[in-house]
């Protein structure tokens, strides 16, 4: 057993792609917010893993198909605090664009402060539901499936579990040096040969819809590119 620490590179060094899978278990942090001000205070010191969970890990948790926001903070601000403006600003955050979770934390705090400056009644607005800060652990395991050529990706992706899709296409953005998914990382090792597929993958937005829908979109994209090449 080994642990993958924050920011460690796991880009494939060879042209073989090792398909991995993962399973997530959520943990209570015991910390909760009963107002926007309390939310701000907790966010300032909560472990980074909790920010990860509410932006990314939550995708593997029970959730309803119709996702309104791409992170739990935005959702709570909209439905607990009932402030659509801050909710929309939080929803616009793209976590992979930040160097690390600390930078993301600072940006969220800035957005909250800016909004409180604009509408100070939010300081004493009582939310209709409290926010529970959760974190998670992800156990990664090898499926023993190996892809030896990018063409095999199109064939295989539709058979991957949704959590395997999560691991390679979403979680990867926290692990790879360029904040990109594992498939793209692997394809880059093949030079310009698979540029079309790389560009097509870059156009897939993973944050809306279910993981099953994401899997099916990836399968369609891979197939379309390979048919075009043929």
């Amino acid at each position, binding site marked *: *057993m*080994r*642990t*993958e*620490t*924050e920011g460690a590179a796991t880009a494939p060094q060879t042209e073989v792609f090792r398909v991995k*899978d*993962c*399973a*997530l*278990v*959520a*943990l*209570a942090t*015991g910390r*909760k917010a009963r107002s926007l001000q309390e939310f701000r205070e907790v966010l300032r010191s909560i*472990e980074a*893993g909790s920010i*990860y969970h509410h932006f990314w890990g939550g995708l593997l948790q*029970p*959730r*309803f*198909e*119709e996702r309104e926001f791409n992170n739990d903070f935005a959702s709570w601000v909209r439905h607990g605090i009932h402030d659509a403006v801050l909710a929309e600003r939080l929803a616009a955050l793209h976590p992979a664009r930040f160097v690390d979770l600390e930078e993301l934390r600072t940006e969220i705090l800035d957005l909250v402060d800016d909004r409180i400056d604009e509408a100070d009644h939010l300081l004493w607005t009582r939310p209709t539901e*409290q926010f*529970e800060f*959760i*974190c*998670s*652990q*992800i*156990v*990664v*395991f*090898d*499926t*023993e499936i190996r892809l030896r050529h990018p063409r095999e990706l199109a064939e295989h992706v539709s*058979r*991957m*579990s*949704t*959590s*395997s899709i999560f691991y390679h296409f979403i*979680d990867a953005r926290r692990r790879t040096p360029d904040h990109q998914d594992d498939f793209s990382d692997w394809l880059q090792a093949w030079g310009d040969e698979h540029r079309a597929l790389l560009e097509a993958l870059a156009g897939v937005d993973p944050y809306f819809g*279910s993981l*099953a829908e994401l899997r099916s979109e990836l399968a369609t994209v891979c197939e379309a590119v390979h048919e075009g090449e043929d």
Partner: protein
Amino acid sequence: MLQDYERVAGPDVIEQVRQLTRPLEGAKVVHVNSTRSGGGVAEILRKLVPFMQELGIDTHWEVITGDSDFFECTKGMHNTLQGNRMPIAENLLRVYEETNARTAEQLRPVLEDADFVFVHDPQPAALLEHFPDHKGKWVWRCHIDASHPYRPVWKYLRRFVTPYDASVFSLAAFAQELPHRQYLIPPSIDPLADKNVDLDRAIVDEVVGEYGIDPERPLIVQISRFDRFKDPVGVIRAFRLARRFVPSLQLVLAGGGASDDPEGEIVLSEVTAAAEQDPSIHVLLLPADANREVNALQRASDIVLQKSVREGFGLTVTEAMWKSRPVIGGDVGGIRLQVKNHHTGFLVNTPEGAALRIRYLLHQPDRIEEMGAKAKEFVRENFLITRHLREYLTLMHSLDHGRHEEMRLVVGEEA
């Protein structure tokens, strides 16, 4: 057994569980609870235990048994953890401790030898203090809505729970101040159990006929133990309010007794009195093994109610949703996790609120169908036993290897 689940949950789900189990093969796991029949915990264990065995984990299921004083005490713990403010008599607490001490001696060989011990709910929680040198990981699994416990009883119980290696709660809101990791794992249903398998229409009609229910008239059903937290009397009130607008409406209140619940009979007599021999209200006390009947009653209903005022998770909600029925549920506990307001059913706070939603749905049969379909898919994705099993396995890996602050653990391969 595993192949049977591939059909319902999908082959990728089963393959994933197999891969996750491989590094744990040969591990010895013991589950301890207080009854083999009746109640959601026994139902989960009845399937989870053989499932783990088939995957190659040496899994055992043990039960703590006690006299009526013991169960009076543990029922008191259950009620007070859910918020009832009522102290438990000292003499009952002594019985609780003695029963746990006696059970610890009986189970000593199997518990001492285990790699993982899952202790379910308060009844056997005090076992651990009799194993100060335990080698395995001990996990306390709390199935109860402990979001607002009566503090004196929780404080008493906490001293038994604190030394555990971890605890598991169904929702973040139920978690408590404890010095160990608190995992969050919702429970699940078994889609292939008698209570949930598809039934022929003929079987549904037969059961409905047996209980004198008119299949031509609209029917609402609440299936749950006769327990005040399930608010059966409130359901009768909601039914009467709705019937003013839907005169042909029928109600079934059906539940079994559980061997660890001494209050059931008292509540049943309150419900019978509230029903006032109304021929459209069917109060049914079902035996613990009446799974097919429960299945048929849920399938015969137009809408399922679970108007609880406190609820751990509410597996009857999951069961009803799996049968494509919209659920009108109390806005509490795990019901909130399952009933997505206006999508898979409605969350309500009063009998009046429940009555309004009953009327709304009975006048919009298309909505019943649409919500029912969404409800079934939501359960398939999130609340089947295969997901539950995967999270137990993940927890075992996490406990075996991980420190709390490590977000990712890699198992089953060389470093």
